[in-house]
């Protein structure tokens, strides 16, 4: 035996110990071998493990340790040298590897430790994120609640519903115990409990508005926590034992319509706030969290807006109701006015007819009466009746005209007329009066005043007559001068009336009529009242039979003719000048032939002369005969005369186109005469026209003439114009109705 360093193991002596060592080594080796296998298995499984090299080393170390322990098994018995050598090699290797591993571990253990810390860190972070996630989710839910709440609040415009809904939704969202709203009273000095969540009928508590806690809440736009003991928060009688939940109060601005005038959101311009008080459930450990407070603030703002919308809506509804009422009232008023106007027009129409008919009867019959044989006293009476009824008729016409004028329903009757003739007519009408009063009357017609004009002849004459009549009425002596000229632009400068700028044109001219009198004049203070209805002058001659309407109507006519009228006077006793300007149309030649036919003599002038017309005049009165002959000669006829019926019948022939017979001589029977003439001219169309001249206009004569087949009847005295129109009629129409 060589150096065997092992004690000869004697099985019987330490056999048990040896046996145990043997088994332990075996198991150790087993374990040592299985560990790397496990490691390899797990390393293969996980791809991430960074320290493979370490594992390999560690594996090697373990394997070698195991090998060592395994080889140790053989050393328990006698073993050869190779075993010893192997054992030694293994041990050496193991020593090397383990030292290497130990050295390696020194490097890697800190790394491993830091991995551990990082892991810890990450875990913390994850926990934190989890928490934040939870928070966000809560907030998200809160936001959803707010939106839903807002939606609920804004879905109605009824004030009461808005507030109730707010409380209900808030209570539900935040799981509140109690929620209350305090509104300011009308006086603004107290807050009154208006709405609560759980109490059906708020008792009507009021608290003064200037409590410090309230002022504190009102001065901030945030939701503030307040003490549960404050009067606004003590809504329910507390049983005593439980701890009241936290209470939060927030202000709700009550916006007024006027706050929305400014563009930016109304800040503190409103002074009225309501108070919303929210109480968390008692006995819960809940606390008001920030997001909940924010939610409350948002809701409060929304409520404010919703309330203001409701207020605006109320306002506009009220305005609309008011307008509707006004409309109804206006409609009623309008209908009443229309009814009144219609009633007045009906009245006027009826009165027009009713008043005029009797007047016409009176006037017509009086004038007929005048034509009969009367004693002088009777004549005087009839004349007075006629004068008075004419006056009355004028008055009625004036009043009716005036009301039509005021109405604006009066329209001018435009037609072509002879302007010069109008003035002559006026002169003729006024002349008798001026002769009686010994006033001198002069008329001056301007050299370029057209003979014919287009306008309302009747009303122009009325206006001129009125003005001239006034001049005559108010003058006791002296002279009246009438002048009528075409107004040129120089004359317009005289007009001291503003706003009157007449512009003559090709189809119109302005007629200026001025009437000067040397009468009693008008005092300056009366001048403005001249044209007012029913006003008489206060000084000067008293009412001399006028209604005071004359100038008023005159003015209206002048205005209708687009003109102007004014009076000037230097004072009492100094006379008066009345001037008016009216617009008339210029009549061209073609208008003249369109003159309408009436039975009035002055307007029918188709033929001015009848050259060569052979006529026969029968009249036994030499003077009459000469006058009639002169008349007919003047008109251009060839006149033969006869002094008696026999002579007449002898002379009359087919050459004569017209015969004039005077039958007012007693002993002449018109009827007989007509028969005899007709006999003489058997064929009708060769017969001359037979015209009777007579001085009396009684019906019997007229009827018998007509029955006898006379072509016409003229009343003596005959004027030139009358004769002219008679002849025209006969020539034109071959027939003549009675003229008077």
């Amino acid at each position, binding site marked *: 035996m060589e150096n065997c360093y092992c004690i000869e193991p004697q099985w019987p002596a330490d056999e048990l110990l040896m046996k145990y060592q043997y088994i332990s080594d075996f198991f150790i080796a087993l374990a040592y071998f299985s560990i790397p296998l496990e490691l390899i298995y797990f390393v293969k499984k996980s791809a991430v493990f960074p320290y493979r090299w370490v594992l390999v080393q560690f594996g090697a170390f373990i394997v070698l340790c195991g090998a060592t322990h395994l080889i140790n098994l053989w050393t328990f018995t006698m073993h050869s040298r190779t075993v010893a050598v192997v054992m030694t090699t293994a041990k050496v290797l193991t020593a090397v590897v383990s030292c290497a591993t130990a050295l390696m571990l020194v490097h890697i253990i800190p790394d491993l430790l830091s991995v551990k810390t990082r892991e810890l860190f990450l875990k913390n972070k994850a926990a934190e994120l989890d928490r934040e996630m939870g928070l966000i989710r809560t907030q998200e839910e809160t936001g959803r609640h707010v939106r839903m709440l807002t939606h609920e609040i804004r879905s109605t415009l009824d004030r009461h519903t808005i507030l109730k809904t707010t409380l209900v939704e808030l209570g539900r969202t935040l799981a509140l115990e109690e929620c209350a709203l305090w509104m300011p009273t009308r006086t603004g000095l107290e807050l009154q409990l208006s709405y609560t969540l759980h109490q059906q009928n708020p008792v009507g508590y009021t608290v003064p508005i200037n409590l410090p806690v309230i002022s504190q809440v009102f001065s901030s736009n945030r939701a503030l926590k307040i003490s549960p003991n404050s009067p606004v928060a003590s809504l329910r009688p507390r049983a005593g034992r439980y701890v009241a939940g936290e209470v939060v109060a927030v202000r709700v601005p009550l916006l007024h319509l006027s706050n929305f005038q400014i563009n930016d959101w109304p800040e503190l311009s409103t002074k009225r706030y309501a108070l919303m008080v929210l109480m968390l459930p008692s006995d819960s450990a809940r606390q008001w969290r920030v997001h909940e407070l924010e939610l409350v603030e948002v809701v409060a703002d929304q409520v404010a807006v919703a309330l203001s919308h409701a207020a605006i809506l109320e306002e506009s509804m009220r305005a609309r109701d008011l307008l509707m009422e006004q409309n109804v009232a206006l409609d009623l008023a309008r209908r009443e006015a229309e009814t009144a106007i219609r009633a007045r027009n009906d009245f006027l129409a009826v009165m027009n007819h009713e008043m005029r008919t009797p007047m016409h009867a009176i006037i017509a019959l009086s004038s007929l009466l005048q034509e009969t*044989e009367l*004693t002088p006293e009777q004549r005087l009476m009839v004349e007075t009746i006629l004068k008075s009824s004419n006056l009355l008729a004028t008055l009625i016409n004036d009043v009716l005209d005036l009301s039509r004028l005021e109405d604006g329903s009066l329209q001018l009757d435009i037609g072509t007329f002879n302007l010069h003739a109008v003035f*002559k007519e006026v*002169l003729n009408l006024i002349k008798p009066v001026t*002769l*009686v009063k010994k006033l001198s009357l*002069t*008329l*001056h017609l301007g050299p370029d005043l057209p003979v014919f004009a287009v306008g309302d002849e009747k009303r122009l004459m009325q206006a001129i007559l009125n003005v001239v009549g006034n001049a005559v009425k108010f003058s006791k002596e002296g002279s009246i001068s009438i002048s009528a000229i075409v107004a040129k632009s120089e004359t317009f400068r005289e007009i001291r009336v503003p706003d009157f700028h007449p512009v003559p044109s090709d189809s119109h001219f302005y007629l200026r009529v001025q009437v000067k009198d040397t009468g009693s004049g008008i005092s300056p203070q009366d001048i403005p009242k001249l044209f007012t209805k029913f006003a008489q002058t206060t000084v000067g001659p008293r009412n001399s039979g006028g209604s005071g309407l004359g100038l008023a109507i005159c003015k209206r006519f002048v205005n209708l003719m687009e003109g102007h009228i004014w009076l000037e006077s230097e004072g009492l006793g100094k006379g008066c000048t009345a001037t008016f300007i009216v617009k008339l149309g210029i009549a061209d030649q073609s208008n003249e032939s369109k003159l309408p036919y009436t039975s009035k003599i002055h307007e029918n002038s188709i033929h001015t002369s009848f050259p060569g017309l052979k006529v026969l005049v029968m009249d036994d*009165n*030499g*003077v*009459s005969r*000469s*006058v009639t002959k*002169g*008349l007919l*000669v*003047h008109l251009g006829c060839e006149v033969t005369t006869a002094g008696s019926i026999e002579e007449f019948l002898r002379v009359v022939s087919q050459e004569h186109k017209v015969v004039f017979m005077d039958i*007012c*001589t*007693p002993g002449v029977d018109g009827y007989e005469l007509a028969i005899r003439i007709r006999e003489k001219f058997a064929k009708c169309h060769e017969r001359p026209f037979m015209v009777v001249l007579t*001085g009396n206009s009684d019906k019997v004569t007229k009827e018998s003439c007509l029955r006898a087949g006379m072509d016409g009847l003229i009343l*003596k*005295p005959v*004027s*030139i114009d009358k004769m002219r129109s008679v002849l025209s009629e006969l020539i034109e129409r071959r027939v003549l109705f009675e003229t008077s």
Partner: protein
Amino acid sequence: MEVGLMRRQWIQYIEGLIHEGTLDGQYLQLLQLQDESNPTFVSEVVTLFFEDTEELLNKLRIAISQPPVDFKKIDDHVHQLKGSSSSIGALRVKNACIDFRSACEQQSPDWCSRCLQQVEQEFYGVKEKLSYLYAQLEKRILNAGGSIPADLSF
């Protein structure tokens, strides 16, 4: 004196006659019949009137002074006179004739005589005035080379 003034005088004279009722509008009508072809128409007719009326008045005087009074005849004459006077526009004469006719209807001789006197008075009045007109005023105008106005307007 210049023509214009004479003419104005003439106009005023005639206006005066009309004013006092001696003449009426018929005379003016007659004036209008007077023109260059017939320059003395008016005076001729008036002269004729004067002559006729003189005759009639004579007849009337005779008829009234002889009883029994033939009122019918008197009425005829007065009718004639009325016609003539109204033809030339002698208003007063005509009115007197109308009264005369009423008297005739009443058949009262006294009243008739009174009316006759009235008619005569009026007639001689008119005759005098118109004679003056023709003999003085119109002659003057014609001598001065002017023409008698045809109407009373300027």
